[in-house]
């Protein structure tokens, strides 16, 4: 405690920021925050790590019910409809204005608004990409698959070599999302309406399910991430999140060469799920805090900050200008593996947020889990799922 510093600090408005980042990510975030706090004298952002995203979410729930929410918190935009219904969050545009969002990468912009207002500020975003084993690719003389069909064909050939073509994470929901999006029939469409038992969805599900059935693809199961098998040299490809790149780099065995590319096409179209977390501003914040939060978010969108954030954490830069920035381009040149994700932004998409999304998410994950771990076929699972999701949607519309 420097007396001057502390008296000055007393005048500052404190902005509490709950997040779920740990380790290196937390360090990067702290750096950003410190820089913000130094950059001005009116606000002070206090980041509080609340464990992982699961515990963070639980904490927000608890805090919401007892009126002890922070100023801002990291969360996914899919929670926004529920928060809006609970009168927990306030729109950001009132404080931030529309302008800052204009530069935000278009795909991220999709998730910002709910019922015409901007609630979710994109923060730690990543895209689904395809990792490949360079040496194995060369050895087996396989080209990078342009389509899911090609991937399946290659897989059948590789099976004789006791190589599985594709490793998936525990759940293949993201890939299924991609496929249905590519087919032009997303799982959830405006309304919201669930299209889980349509012909197209069944076909898309079969693409993955068939691969799992004939062992040209495998899920990670309890290991969580498909990278385990991928690094073991047992699979040629691994469909995973770009956020994992830094970790993959750290955990790759010595002499293991790998690369990344965009997800294959289906029905001739490209499409990649973008996921990650956003930041919301809570209603309980005072006007001064709201203004401070806006200033902080504004600060995060600045090119320098967002590029640094992306470079340090492996998340994607938030603005188009940052993506095109020569500085960042140089970084990409040095880190070719990071390129696939940035490229994916052009055809990236995000799920539609709606009330009851968490229930929907649980339901569909459970169904997909059943498809992978039991003998259930899509024809058996999907009608049930459709029914269940219909109920969920109906109930939430009523609420």
């Amino acid at each position, binding site marked *: 405690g420097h007396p001057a510093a502390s008296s000055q600090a007393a005048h500052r408005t404190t902005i*509490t920021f*709950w997040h*779920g*980042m*740990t*380790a*290196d*990510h*937390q360090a990067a975030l702290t750096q950003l925050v410190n820089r913000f706090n130094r950059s001005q004298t009116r606000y002070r952002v206090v980041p*509080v*790590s*609340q*464990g*992982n*995203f699961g*515990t963070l979410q*639980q*904490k927000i*729930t*608890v*805090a919401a*019910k*007892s*009126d*002890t929410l*922070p100023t801002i918190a990291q969360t996914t935009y899919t929670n926004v409809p529920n928060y809006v219904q609970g009168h927990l969050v306030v729109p950001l545009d009132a404080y931030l204005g529309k302008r800052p969002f204009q530069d935000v990468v278009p795909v991220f912009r999709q998730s910002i608004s709910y019922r015409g207002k901007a609630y979710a500020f994109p923060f730690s975003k990543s895209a689904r990409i395809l990792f490949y084993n360079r040496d194995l690719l060369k050895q087996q003389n396989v080209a990078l698959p342009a389509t899911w069909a090609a991937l399946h064909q290659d897989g059948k050939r590789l099976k004789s070599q006791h190589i599985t073509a594709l490793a998936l994470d525990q759940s293949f929901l993201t890939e299924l999302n991609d496929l249905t999006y590519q087919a032009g029939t997303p799982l959830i469409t405006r309304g919201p309406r669930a299209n889980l038992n349509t012909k197209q969805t069944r076909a898309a599900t079969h693409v993955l399910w068939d691969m799992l059935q004939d062992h040209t693809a495998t899920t990670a199961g309890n*290991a*969580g*991430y498909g*990278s*385990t098998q991928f*690094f073991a040299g047992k699979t040629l490809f691994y469909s995973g*999140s770009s*956020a*994992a790149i*830094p*970790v*993959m780099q*750290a*955990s790759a065995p010595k002499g293991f060469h790998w690369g990344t590319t965009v997800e294959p096409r289906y029905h001739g179209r490209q499409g990649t799920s973008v996921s990650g977390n956003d930041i919301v501003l809570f209603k309980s914040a005072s006007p001064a805090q709201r203004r401070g939060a806006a200033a902080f978010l504004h600060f995060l969108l600045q090119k320098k900050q967002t590029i640094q954030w992306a470079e340090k954490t*492996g998340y994607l830069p938030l603005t188009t200008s940052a993506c095109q920035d020569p500085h960042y381009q140089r970084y990409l040149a040095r880190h070719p593996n990071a390129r696939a994700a940035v490229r994916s932004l052009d055809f990236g998409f995000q799920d539609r947020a709606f009330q009851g999304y968490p229930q929907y998410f649980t339901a569909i994950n459970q169904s997909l889990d059943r498809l992978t771990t039991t003998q259930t076929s899509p024809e058996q699972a999907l009608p049930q799922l459709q029914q269940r999701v219909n109920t969920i949607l109906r109930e939430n519309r009523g609420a």
Partner: protein
Amino acid sequence: MKKLLIGGRYLLLALGAVAMLLPFVWMVVISLQPAATTLTLPTFAWSSALHWENYRHAWRLAPFAQYYGNSLLVTATTTGGQLFTSILAAFAFSHLHFYGRRLLFRGLIALTMIPGELLLIPNFITLTHLHWINTYAALIVPWLTSIFAMFALRQAFLTHPQSLYYAARLEGASDWQYLWHVLVPLNRPVITAVGLLQAIGSWNAFMWPLIVTNSPRLRTLPVGLMTFTSQTGTNYPLLMAATVFVVVPLLILYLALQKYIVAGITRANLKG
């Protein structure tokens, strides 16, 4: 014959001990592997050098000294409080007669059946009203009782001959004096065991401290363990190193208390 029996006993115990020990050994071995955040569990690599520096790194990654202090404080006070309140209640349930004794006892046991997940939010709201969020009080006060401890102690208190109680009362001891001068020393093994179990529970408690505190100043060791895990991967060696130094105080505590747990007072002191 007797020797054979003893030998068999050791053999069985040793077999079981391997199963008990294996995960712990594994933990220590992993903690000595080269550190890096990974998506997969590392496997043994015996040949490589032992990375003792992992412990140093893990210690530095989070304010563990602070966490240690908090854990010590919280564990000591909650365990002490639990023992105190449980001893009192166990005494009432085993030695005193009052209306509704059986009903109340059963009711309390029944209460332990409520899953904590259900109580979390209402309790949080209560603490908010008390303005205790983010204070030591929130970490300590709700845990100052343990119905399990009460149950365990009552079971032990029940087995003592009543004549001891009467003798003490006649000799001018109040209930209070009898409790602390006779019953508690007599039950030291059980009290120590229960206290140890409660201390371990408190030391390892994770969800509650995380939920009711917001600043690292108040957080406890298990929360510190989260430092090494993120959505995108886990630094297993560092996590295991940290786990080891979270566990070690408990082990020391256990070793220190062990002799009290197995030192019976009622044991007939015949040789042989």
